[in-house]
């Protein structure tokens, strides 16, 4: 074999392997989408059906039985509100840590990150009791607070590394030019960090939308998010694969579409500072 042939072979092997891995990873999600359009009988048939006459019946049943729109609205409200609130808190925190460093800044950043290393279930009891005594169980307000707090470390870190890319002298120059703190934020810092702010917000939105642990434990029929909706279909009544798939499909579809359109921003934000 010549060198060219060897190279070509390596190329083919690589391509086949990559496709195999990609398909393997995508398969469960693809199967979920297919199942959502089957009848319950088709869903559990052996051998599994790949070709069938699709039906919308599962979606209609899910909507009729469990008020999909209410859950979707809860998901939307909690994720948007926690993102906005989170940005409002993380922005000044990251600003102060990036531009007014002290000896303890690094420690505080590490401490904030370390809170994400603890399993959430470790804090379940205290958080549950606090939510209960303050009357925030099964309310969107309660979920918004918990989502915001759990995403805050990531947001501060992302904004911090974003701000670090901006030379402090530019902000000093604006102060010398007579800018108040608010003008410095609005006219200089904000336009310069728009990209980082957008990707931080997007990531937070996705994380809040997908959050399942807290919404399952702190909410029920009134404030439940789409994660809770999905979970409700694997209930003591037994598993209804087609309906469970339809509910899952309806829960993930909006955020997948959203992620698809914002992927450029997301990738840019996550690799900020990593590649120059």
């Amino acid at each position, binding site marked *: 074999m010549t060198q060219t042939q060897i190279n070509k072979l390596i190329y083919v092997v690589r391509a086949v392997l990559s496709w195999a891995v990609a398909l393997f990873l995508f398969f469960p999600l693809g199967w979920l989408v297919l199942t959502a359009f089957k009848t319950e009988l088709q869903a559990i048939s052996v051998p599994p059906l790949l070709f069938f006459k699709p039906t919308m019946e599962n979606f209609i049943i899910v909507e009729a039985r469990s008020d999909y729109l209410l859950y979707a609205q809860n998901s939307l409200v909690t994720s948007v509100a926690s993102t906005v609130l989170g940005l409002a808190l993380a922005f000044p925190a990251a600003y102060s840590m990036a531009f007014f460093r002290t000896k303890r800044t690094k420690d505080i950043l590490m401490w904030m990150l370390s809170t994400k290393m603890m399993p959430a279930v470790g804090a379940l009891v205290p958080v549950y009791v606090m939510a209960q005594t303050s009357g925030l169980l099964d309310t969107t307000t309660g979920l918004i607070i918990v989502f915001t707090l759990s995403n805050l470390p990531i947001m501060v870190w992302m904004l911090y590394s974003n701000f670090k890319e901006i030379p402090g002298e530019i902000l000093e*120059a604006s102060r*010398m*030019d007579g800018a108040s703190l608010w003008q410095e934020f609005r006219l200089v810092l904000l336009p310069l960090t728009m990209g980082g702010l957008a990707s931080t917000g997007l990531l937070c939105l996705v994380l809040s939308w997908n959050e399942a642990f807290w919404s399952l434990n702190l909410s029920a029929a009134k404030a439940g998010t789409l994660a809770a909706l999905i979970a409700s279909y694997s209930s003591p009544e037994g598993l209804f694969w087609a309906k469970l798939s339809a509910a899952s499909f309806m829960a993930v579809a909006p955020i997948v579409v959203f992620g698809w359109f914002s992927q450029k921003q997301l990738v840019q934000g996550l690799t900020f500072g990593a590649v120059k």
Partner: protein
Amino acid sequence: MSYLQLNRIEKSFGAQRVIKGVDLSINKGEFVVFVGPSGCGKSTLLRLIAGLENVDTGSIHLDGREITDLPSSKRDLAMVFQSYALYPHMSVYENMSFALKLAKADPAVIKEKVERAAQILNLTQYLQRTPKELSGGQRQRVAIGRAIVRAPKVFLFDEPLSNLDAALRGQTRIEIAKLHRDLDATTIYVTHDQVEAMTLADRVVVLREGVIEQVGTPLELYDRPANQFVAQFIGTPQMNVVSVAKLPALETIAALKAPAGGYVGLRPESVKLVHEGDGQIRAKVDLVEALGAETLIYVTTEQGVPLVARQTERCHLDVGAGVGIDVDAEVAHVFDAQGRVVSASQAA
């Protein structure tokens, strides 16, 4: 009373005292240069005046008003940063008009002032560009333009030329000097480059380790340095400073009254090379640097003391050749063991 007055300014970063009780008066329209080796506190002192750092103790008065605790935005000062610090998301026009816009000036006035500054700085054709699209020298001029548009009480320059190449640096230096003359603006300029200090300043402030070593006109510092540090910091090549103990011949020259353990300082141009056998000191040539307009000759005396001589005549000595050295006692500087000047020379 002076225009800008610093009283007993102190500043520490953690346990490190960076500025140790600085007093300074600057007159209106004066061009003052802070110079010193890196880490001497010159940039910190400028940032204290700018309000970008807070003083620990002491006070700052500007034009009869105390500004010690005022934020930068209220001090009516303009600063040109080493990195230029232009707003990358704004055009040159927007960069230059930013301060006036914040001050809610009339748009027609803003336009007129920006255009006038652009004209002075040769930036008219670049007004719509962003900083990214400009060369280093042009960015530098925008940074200066941003300052002059405001007509502030004092201009602050923080090593503004250090990012430019040598040719551009020389050219911009001349432009800054011209600009100062035309605008008659009070200016404080920080640099570690003594040539910039000597050429631009009305008065030079030499700093070392947070303390002012000497304040004076460039030629005062050159001709009558207050101590060995200033003597050796100002002037290229450095002043020859020789321990009298090492070169006893100096003691017998004229009436030098060097105290015990003292030093004698000789500018390279006052070390005169004569024929071997003549002069008070014998030496050998180590190196000859012919720079065209002047020639530097590095020699070592028979006592092993290195000296450098500067002359305007061309030199035809070979390395290793023996020479005599004649010292003009009239222009020699004498320092005591602590490096303080004992008797200043009267060179003109």
